[in-house]
């Protein structure tokens, strides 16, 4: 049985349902952002760690030219190493019937007997029978992109020898969660594939019987990765070791880590801002809503209700609003979070996704909203309950007003009312301005990501990378080999490049990445400064991506220790000549001739940039991919598309949801501001109506005030938004990519427009209420 007071509660809520909805929206917007981001991140991290555990992702990795299997046993004996698995991995070109373009990939040898690491998760079919040489399992991203199923034939060229294989299974593996072709930064499932086949036939095709070229290991509890890496490096050096490394340098793991770091920043900062804004607004709005209940509170006190009972009653009132808003927010956040997680699943080939919303996330959501609303309620109700009932039931004394320094002599009385009202309660006016400004700033933050991505793409693909195709070879080849490339039809210009992986050391900091040798006068690939102007390669010395220089703590003029991880494996001090601005990846650059001297090699290249006649592009692409020495061919347009398809799509989806939620908050704030003003001043406005003011004239007073507030709030919000965007850009710097701080005028305009529209919409709704002011009531009613 509901008490009379509880029944009053529901009727009161129903009476202010417009505001309940608006407040719930503000709150739901904040909560949804938080739930979306936090649950996505937590689910991805949880999925990753569960997958690493279940499918035994190793802790140490090493690549080498070739070593007999006995060397693997010596690695197993290294102190700290718990288990070892050696295998052969071979580059391959793949042809699919019905798919014109050549496909590159890696063929991985499956262990004989039970595998120790990187267990396969079969999505369909089975593993190859131990005795069958022509069976293969394909990676699930590739299978999905080509709709491959067990039973499909594949033509695979390994080491120049073409063989026909049969797909028997589709699988994913923790080491290829983020599946990258050499030289690319986003997965392309159409043209890059991982294949698994039995070890024996692969070793046979690759001339590696009884040998291996990759080794993985797990560590004993407490063993240091660095020690194991050093020991393995020493052991493998005679066998052409390419440098052992821990998980943090494993390609797939590193990209995942970087992306999760980026997501983590998005997932903490944006919701923190949103949730604090929503909490703040909730506090303000609930406080003002309660202040309009002054008469009721006095009446209840006159009936003999204690202050405690009244506070409890109104706390229930806000609790209902908070619960509605929070539940809406959690539901919305879960829906968006699940959607975003699925989108991530398309890029990250997890075997499964553990999407769930942790209890802690729900607890934080409720905690923040209840605290914010509770405090707002408590203060206003205690203030109202503090008055003696007799005083509170009297008409409120006319508020104390003063002339304003803002008013001008020719102001009409309604204009004076607007100005004096604003000035009389500066805190309230400032809170309203603050609320609208924050909503505006959140719209800027939402739009900023789009601007940043556009600028990033523009800088990288229209200013820095002007090549049409980038060719990568499996191994260094003589520069003369490029003559044959140059003579292919459609090729206008070729610029050689030499890529080598290297470890950079400065003071105690080290970093492992690619060192690229380029032509000094190259036209197809330009190194740029922050203003996107060209930086010349010095004859000696090295240029670093700005982020790499920051990570290493070096500046121009410093001597950097460069350790080559291939070929000569030379270690040398190189002068840092300067930094270059790059938004994607981190790389070091030298002139190719200096790099080749450093490597003690002749005039060799590992790839080339090509300028191509557009009509000849498709044909040339196919011809290049058919050359056995070619490991990969990347097209600029394709890079642009892949980029948009993956990273940008993720960020932009996130940004889109944020914009949506920011708009919700903007609408909620503006509507509440003006709606509460109406409650507070309804009597005054109705009196003016009685005195002969038209609806329009009365609306002017209320909406004029709102307009002034919004006019001050919008520019303020634009400035605040710019500041927040800057802060986010600075926090979102990762090795994978940096977010340039760019806010386009259109973003400011859009934010201002959304707030202006929210204002117009609220004005329209409240204007309708003004039309229905009860004129008779005002003659008798007190506030």
């Amino acid at each position, binding site marked *: 049985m509901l008490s009379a007071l509880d029944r009053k509660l529901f009727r009161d809520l129903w009476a202010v349902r417009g505001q309940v909805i608006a407040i719930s929206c503000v709150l739901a917007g904040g909560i949804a952002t938080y739930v979306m981001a936090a649950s996505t991140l937590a689910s991805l991290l949880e999925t990753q760690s569960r997958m690493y555990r279940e499918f035994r992702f190793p802790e140490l990795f090493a690549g080498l030219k070739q070593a007999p299997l006995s060397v693997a046993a010596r690695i197993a004996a290294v102190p700290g190493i718990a288990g070892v698995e050696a295998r052969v991995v071979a580059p391959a070109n793949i042809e699919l019937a019905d798919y014109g373009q050549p496909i590159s990939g890696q063929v991985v040898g499956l262990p004989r007997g039970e595998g120790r690491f990187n267990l396969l998760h079969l999505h369909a079919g089975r593993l190859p029978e131990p005795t069958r040489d022509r069976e293969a399992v394909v990676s699930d991203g590739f299978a999905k992109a080509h709709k491959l199923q067990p039973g499909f034939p594949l033509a695979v060229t390994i080491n120049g020898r073409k063989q026909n294989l049969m797909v028997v299974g589709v699988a994913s593996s923790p080491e290829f969660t983020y599946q990258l072709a050499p030289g690319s930064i986003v997965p392309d499932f159409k043209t890059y594939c991982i294949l698994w086949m039995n070890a024996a036939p692969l070793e046979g095709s690759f001339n590696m019987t009884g040998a291996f070229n990759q080794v993985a290991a797990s560590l004993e509890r407490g063993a240091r990765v660095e020690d194991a890496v050093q020991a393995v490096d020493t052991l493998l050096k005679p066998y052409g070791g390419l440098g052992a490394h821990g998980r943090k340098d494993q390609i797939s793991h590193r990209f995942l880590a970087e992306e999760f770091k980026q997501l983590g920043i998005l997932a903490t900062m944006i919701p923190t801002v949103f949730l604090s804004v929503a909490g703040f607004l909730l506090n303000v709005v609930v406080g003002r809503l309660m202040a309009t209940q002054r008469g009721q509170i006095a009446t209840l006190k006159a009936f003999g209700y204690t202050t405690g009972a009244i506070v409890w009653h109104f706390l229930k009132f806000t609790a209902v609003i908070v619960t509605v808003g929070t539940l809406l927010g959690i539901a919305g956040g879960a829906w968006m979070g699940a959607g975003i997680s699925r989108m991530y699943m398309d890029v990250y080939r997890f075997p499964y996704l553990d999407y769930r919303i942790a209890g802690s996330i729900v607890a934080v959501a409720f905690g923040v909203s209840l605290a914010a609303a509770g405090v707002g309620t408590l203060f206003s109700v205690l203030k109202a309950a503090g008055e003696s009932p007799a005083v509170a039931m009297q*008409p409120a*004394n*006319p*508020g*104390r*007003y*003063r*002339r304003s320094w803002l008013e001008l002599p020719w102001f*009409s*009385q*309604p204009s*004076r*009312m607007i100005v*004096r*009202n604003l000035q*009389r309660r500066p805190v309230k006016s400032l809170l309203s301005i603050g609320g609208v400004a924050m909503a505006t700033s959140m719209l800027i933050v939402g739009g900023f990501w789009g601007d940043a991505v556009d600028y990033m793409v523009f800088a990288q693909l229209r200013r820095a990378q002007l090549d049409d195709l980038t060719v990568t070879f499996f191994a260094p080849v003589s520069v003369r080999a490029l003559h044959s490339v140059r003579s292919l039809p459609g090729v206008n210009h070729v610029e050689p490049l030499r890529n080598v992986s290297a470890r950079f050391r400065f003071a105690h900091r080290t970093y492992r990445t690619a060192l690229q040798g380029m032509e000094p006068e190259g036209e197809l690939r330009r190194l740029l400064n922050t203003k996107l102007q060209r930086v010349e390669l010095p004859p000696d010395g090295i240029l670093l991506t700005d982020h790499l220089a920051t990570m290493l703590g070096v500046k121009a003029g410093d001597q950097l220790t460069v350790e080559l991880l291939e070929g000569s494996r030379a270690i040398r001090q190189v002068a840092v000549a300067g930094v270059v601005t790059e938004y994607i990846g981190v790389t070091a650059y030298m002139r190719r001739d200096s790099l080749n001297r450093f490597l003690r090699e002749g005039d060799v290249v590992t790839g080339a940039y090509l300028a191509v006649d557009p009509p000849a592009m498709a044909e040339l692409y196919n011809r290049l991919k058919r050359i056995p020495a070619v490991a990969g061919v990347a097209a600029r347009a394709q890079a642009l598309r892949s980029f948009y398809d993956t990273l940008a799509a993720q960020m932009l989806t996130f940004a889109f949801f944020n914009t949506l939620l920011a708009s919700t908050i903007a609408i909620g704030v503006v509507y509440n501001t003006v709606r509460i003003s109406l409650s507070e001043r309804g*009597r*005054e406005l109705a*009196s*003016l*109506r*009685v*005195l*002969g*003011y*038209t*609806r329009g*004239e009365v609306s002017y007073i209320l909406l004029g005030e709102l307009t002034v507030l919004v006019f001050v709030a919008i520019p303020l919000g634009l400035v605040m938004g710019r500041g927040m965007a800057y802060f986010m850009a600075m926090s979102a710097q990762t090795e994978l990519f940096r977010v340039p701080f760019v806010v386009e005028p259109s973003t400011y305009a859009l934010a201002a427009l959304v707030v202006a529209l929210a204002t117009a919409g609220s004005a329209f709704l409240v204007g309708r209420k003004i039309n229905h002011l009860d*004129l*008779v009531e*005002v*003659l*008798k009613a*007190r506030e």
Partner: protein
Amino acid sequence: MTKFYDMGEVRVHALRGVDLELYSGEMMVLLGPSGSGKSTLLNILGGLDRASGGSVLYRGFDITAANDRELTQYRRRHVGFVFQFYNLIPSLTALENVAAVTEIAENPMKPAEALELVGLTDRMHHFPSQLSGGQQQRVAIARAIAKRPSVLLCDEPTGALDSETGIVVLEAIDKVNRELGAATAVITHNADIAGMADRVVHMSNGGVSHVDLNEHRRSPKELHW
């Protein structure tokens, strides 16, 4: 003229058939207990509410048939209101409260002039919060009469005041009635106030029970309660 309200399933008859004329320059007091229908009558006369049956004519203009815009114009041009709780705009000074009405009226008096009529020249620049209840009510009267209304409607103008202050307020109403010649209706349930009227309309149970004519109006100074 009749007025009923449909309150859910119950129909409440507020006015059961009132036939009344209000003359230019006349001072009429509407006397009656709570619920007798006097406020409803005043609201209808002032164009705030519509009659359910019959008609209300203002100089031949049927305000029962008027739309909202016409009613607003009627109130704006011809009607002065004085409320029980003054309903001054707290953000405007006494002078500005009056100006708020003169700015939208045709041929109004100067706001200062209206305040002089109610004896508040020296408090013109005070805000409502700086005025006593009686002073606030006199500002409200000045505001009501500054447009030179033909109809002045006062709903319990002394209801929230002590008798001494109430008399000062009634004096102001009396004075503007005499000097401006507005048809004035004052609602009260205080029978002592009836002495200042030309005509006293007694209301009960939604109708006029009887009408008294005073041979000569007493000055409010002579009243006491």
